């Protein structure tokens, strides 16, 4: 059967190679703006609704786009097909690409570059925001907004706190209540930018237009066309603090399937001062000036409380910001490599704050009111703050290679809101390095077991 199956697939088509080449080039182009883009995705949670654009047809140099509902994170939704009392609203976007530019092919987003040089030119992100949303809060790295006019549209130039080389603008398309975030490449002149914006137009669409492409499913319970990202269910299994967890690892070098690392929590301490810690073990991504005072005491941090929007007519918004005292949970974890080979172990330990329901299940405390869709930002950091012993590379924060048969105790420090310590659990998932003991439960590809250990 092996031979029958090994050659069952055709050769990879050339068009596929082109897609991969294009993605690599795009990755290359994005390198400069990578940081700001990553941050952007986080900020989208704040107030906006985003869309993914899919090209439909080309008429001369006019490109018609159909806007397709698309999730982003756990809240993302399209608003261009928006739910109104009388049904969905269909809007089409037309872009006339100026001479000398073309769309970057095979990208999920609408991006354009110079035809001759391939230099990055523009990308666009249409959104509809709630009326009282402050534009300054949508993107990060915003010092101020400068009101301008572009191609007869009211617009705002984003003046950044830190220059990144790519200019950003909000352009208002009032007739369809669309706010367009436009990125502009470094080499684009004012005239070229004006011409590009002038080529963006919206018109009313029809259901028939949309049906050319797809139909919305008839789901009356879900008429906001919101797509939840939380299909990954987590099953929390509480373990005693002294439970030994065994990781099963595989060596690509030797092919050995049976590498094993045992781990056990030896001690948990809580402090609000970092003076006793070895500064070399502090994660350099933290700016200490912002999180500790001059005496090394952790400063309070803010926790935002969100009211989720319905994704169509209402946006997400911060309804409260709480100031929370911070503590550092220090976990002494003993790792023992029982194999005859050196191994690397990803740090699968994190802190979560959970409350136990009457049926014994666990729910994150950040879900403040499920019915009203009120949630808090994380009470414990998702980054590890401190590792007493970590990898040689400064850019990577991980447990160093465990030598064959080596036993080592490593202190892992994670920052958490003091008020939530009684709900804090060390969580351990089977991500990448699988847990072989206690027995790992399989539900499906998208459902994971989390082993949890109570901090207090």
């Amino acid at each position, binding site marked *: 059967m092996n031979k029958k199956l090994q050659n*069952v697939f055709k050769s*990879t*088509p050339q068009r*596929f190679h082109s897609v991969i080449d294009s993605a690599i080039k795009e*990755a290359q182009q994005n390198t400069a703006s990578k940081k700001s883009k990553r941050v952007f995705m986080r900020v989208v949670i704040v107030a906006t609704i985003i869309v993914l654009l899919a090209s439909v047809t080309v008429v001369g140099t006019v490109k018609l786009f159909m806007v397709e509902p698309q999730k982003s994170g756990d809240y993302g939704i399209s608003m261009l097909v928006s739910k109104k009392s009388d049904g969905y609203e269909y809007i089409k976007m037309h872009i006339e690409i100026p001479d000398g530019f073309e769309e970057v092919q095979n990208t999920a987003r609408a991006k354009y570059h110079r035809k001759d040089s391939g230099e990055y030119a523009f990308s666009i992100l249409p959104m509809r925001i709630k009326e009282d949303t402050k534009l300054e809060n949508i993107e990060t790295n915003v010092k101020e907004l400068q009101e301008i006019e572009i191609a007869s549209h009211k617009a705002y130039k984003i003046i950044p706190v830190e220059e990144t080389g790519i200019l950003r603008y909000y352009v208002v398309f009032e007739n369809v209540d669309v706010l367009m975030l436009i990125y502009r490449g470094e080499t684009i002149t004012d005239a070229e930018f004006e011409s590009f914006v002038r080529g963006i137009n919206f018109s009313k669409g029809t259901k028939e237009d949309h049906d050319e492409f*797809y*139909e919305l499913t008839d789901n009356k319970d879900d008429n906001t066309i919101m*797509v939840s990202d939380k299909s990954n269910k987590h099953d929390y299994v509480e373990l005693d603090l002294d439970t030994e967890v065994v990781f099963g690892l*595989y060596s690509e070098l030797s092919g050995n399937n049976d590498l094993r690392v045992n781990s056990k929590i030896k001690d948990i301490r809580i402090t609000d001062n970092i003076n006793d810690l070895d500064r070399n073990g502090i994660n350099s991504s933290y700016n200490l000036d912002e999180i500790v005072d001059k005496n090394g005491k952790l400063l309070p941090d803010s926790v935002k409380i969100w009211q989720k929007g319905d994704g169509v007519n209402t946006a997400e918004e911060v309804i409260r910001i709480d100031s929370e005292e911070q503590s550092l949970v220090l976990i002494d974890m003993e790792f023992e490599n029982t194999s005859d080979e050196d191994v690397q172990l990803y740090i699968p330990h994190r802190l979560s704050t959970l409350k136990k329901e009457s049926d014994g299940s666990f729910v994150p405390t950040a879900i403040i009111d499920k019915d009203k869709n009120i949630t808090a930002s994380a009470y414990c950091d998702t980054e590890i703050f401190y590792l007493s012993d970590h990898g040689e590379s400064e850019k990577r924060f991980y447990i160093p290679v465990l030598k064959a048969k080596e036993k080592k105790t490593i202190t892992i420090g994670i920052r958490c809101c003091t008020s939530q310590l009684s709900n804090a659990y060390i969580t351990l998932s089977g991500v990448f390095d699988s847990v072989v003991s206690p027995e790992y439960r399989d539900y499906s590809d998208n459902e994971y077991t989390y082993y949890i250990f109570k901090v207090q």
Partner: protein
Amino acid sequence: MDINTFAVLVSDSEDTLYRVSMSMLKNEHDAMDAVHNAVLKAYENLHKLRNDEYFKTWLTRILINECKLEIRKQKRYVYLEDDTFDISSRDNPYRDIEIGEVIDGLPPKIRLVVVMYYVEGYSIKDIKMALRIPEGTVKSRLSKGRKILKEKLG
């Protein structure tokens, strides 16, 4: 890892990306989107890859997640392509239509494991890591797949 090394490693994985995405999505347009997004995500998250030796498995895992997102999206929207897809169409990735039909007929989870193991030559451990499922589950899916294939292919 710099962009050039990344490009080389991705190029080395092209065939795997094609076959894995096509076996999951059965539609070249969607498969290309998934591969494109996976490559971009991989580059953005390179700093999270702690061991370059695992690059291909890691990239495949990202691709599988992208394909799952695509499948979830498809569940919400009825694509015209669903009605028109035909094993003999351009989107058919198989040389042998008969075997292709049998593979396509496998339940999705079993199909993916079968393709990764028999076609891509991944070890059970690799599949376990890429799919984040226990080794026993990989084996049982392979076993079920083998049984179905044997019944249909002889």
